[in-house]
C-alpha cells in the first residue's frame, strides 16, 4: 500500500522535476561556497554545503530511477498488452473447441441411438437363429473389463 502511494506520487511528477532537484542541490552548494567568503556567513556553510550535496545525490538517484522505470514501464505495458491479446485468443480457442466437442459428442450419441433402434427393430431376426452361449457372455465381459482395474 505504502509503495503504491509512493509510486503514484512519483509517476505524477514531470520529467524535469528530478534534474531540477539535482541542479538546485548544486546551486545550494555553490551558494554556500560563495557566502563562505564572507566571515559572517561562514559558520552556516558547514550546514548548507552537506544539504546541497545530499539534495544533489537524491535528485540524481531519483532521476536515474525514474528514467529507467519509464523505459521498463513501457516494456511492462507492452507485455501486458501481449498477454491480454494471448488470453483473448486462448479464450476464443477454448470456446471454439467447446462448441466442437458438443457437436461431435452429439454426432456420436445420435449415431448410437440410430443403431440401437435398428437392433431393437431387427431383434426378432437377429435372435431367431442364434442363442448366445453363457461362455460367450463371460468372455465378452472379461474383454470389456479394464485390465488395470482387474489387476488391482
Amino acid at each position, binding site marked *: 500500500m505504502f509503495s503504491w502511494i509512493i*509510486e503514484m506520487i512519483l509517476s505524477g511528477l514531470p520529467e524535469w522535476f528530478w534534474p531540477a532537484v539535482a541542479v538546485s542541490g548544486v546551486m545550494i552548494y555553490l551558494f554556500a561556497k560563495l557566502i563562505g567568503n564572507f566571515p559572517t556567513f561562514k559558520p552556516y556553510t558547514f550546514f548548507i554545503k552537506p544539504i546541497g550535496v545530499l539534495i*544533489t*545525490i537524491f535528485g*540524481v*538517484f*531519483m*532521476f*536515474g*530511477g*525514474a*528514467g*529507467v*522505470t519509464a523505459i*521498463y*514501464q513501457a*516494456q*511492462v505495458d507492452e*507485455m*501486458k498488452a*501481449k*498477454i491480454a491479446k*494471448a*488470453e483473448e*485468443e*486462448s*479464450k476464443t*480457442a*477454448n470456446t471454439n*473447441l*467447446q462448441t*466442437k*466437442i*458438443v457437436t*461431435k*459428442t452429439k454426432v*456420436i*450419441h445420435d*449415431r*448410437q441411438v440410430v*443403431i*440401437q433402434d435398428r*437392433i*431393437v427393430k*431387427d*431383434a426378432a431376426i*437377429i*435372435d431367431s437363429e*442364434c*442363442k*448366445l*452361449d*453363457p461362455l*460367450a*457372455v463371460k468372455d*465378452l*465381459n472379461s474383454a*470389456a*473389463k*479394464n485390465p488395470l*482395474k482387474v489387476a488391482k
Partner: protein
Amino acid sequence: MKKILTLLFVIGLTGCSSMLAPMPKQSWPDTPPDLKIACDDLALLNEDTTKLSEALKVITANYSQYYTCKDKVDNWLEWYNTQQKIYNSVK
C-alpha cells in the same frame, strides 16, 4: 570533482535498479469443462442373457463409448497444441 561525478553516476545507476516493477506473468489457460470429465468404463453384458440382440446393444454402446473417449483424447491434444502455440507467441 571526478570522485563526486563517479559517486553521482553510481548513485544514479543504483536508482535505476532499485525502482523496477515486476514484469507481468502469463497464466496457463484453463481447459474446457468437458475435457475434465474422465472416460466411463465399458458396459458389461447381463450374464443371464442368451439373446444376441442384447449383446449387440451393449457392444454398440461400447463402440460409441470408445469413440467418445477417442474424441476426448483428440480434443486434449488439439487443446494443448493450440494453447501452447498461443502461450509461446508471447515473448
